[in-house]
């Protein structure tokens, strides 16, 4: 049920992106999305180093 809610949530975000991203906003919106996605990846890189590879231990 919550997973369905998340999918719905994702659709809702895209509705807002589709209707409120003016052409002059696109670069900022692109960077917000991609920098957040990259930060999420980098966090998991750190989790891997700390708890799997042992490189931080």
């Amino acid at each position, binding site marked *: 049920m919550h997973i369905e809610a998340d999918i719905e949530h994702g659709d809702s975000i895209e509705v*807002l992106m*589709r209707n409120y991203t003016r052409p002059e906003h696109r670069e900022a919106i692109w960077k917000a999305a991609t920098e957040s996605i990259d*930060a999420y990846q980098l*966090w998991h890189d750190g989790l891997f*180093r700390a708890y799997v590879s042992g490189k931080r231990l």
Partner: protein
Amino acid sequence: MTQSSPQHEIGDGTNRKPWESGDIEQFIARLRIYRDERHVADHPFTRSIVSGEISREGIVNYLGQFCVYVERGGKAWLPWLMGNIPVGLEFRQAKNVMLDNLYGEFHNPADHVDLLLDMAAKSFDADKEALYHSTLLPETIAFMRIEEHYAHDTSWLEGVVALGFGLETQSPRYFEEIRRGLKLTTGLKTPTTTTCTLRRTLSTGTA
């Protein structure tokens, strides 16, 4: 491990940035591709949980990082983000779904920090108090700073895109992988309802 993320040009030989061409549907489609190519469900850390490579201690510490991230991060940012959403926003249904999702992160009985702590204690015999006060990894702090910036210092739409599109939409597949891994490798008997609720926590810290 992590793919580099330069704002590379689109592959049509025109030196245009990915936000400089096409209509809004193409723009969103490119962002979906960018996200899906870097999906945390496919990250080596997630794969290590699925394969059982990570120790019990590692899993508990991971839950601790998430717990503190949600408590000190998501719970602080979400009110800012919600407060910045324009009162007169159209597309009321879309707005309501989003607000309901954000509010659910810290609404009883599914406060995500409580859910995380309970799961760690019941399934891994972890010390909830110690977990609540986990020392953050540098990467966790860096991640929190970036999300805080988007929630607090940018337009409401950038904040929604960073936390909602960038993170939250990864949650369903990500948390299903985590749950699958824990079930396979530890015999974890975590109810689907609990883990599915935690999918938010394990995504945005508002997750």
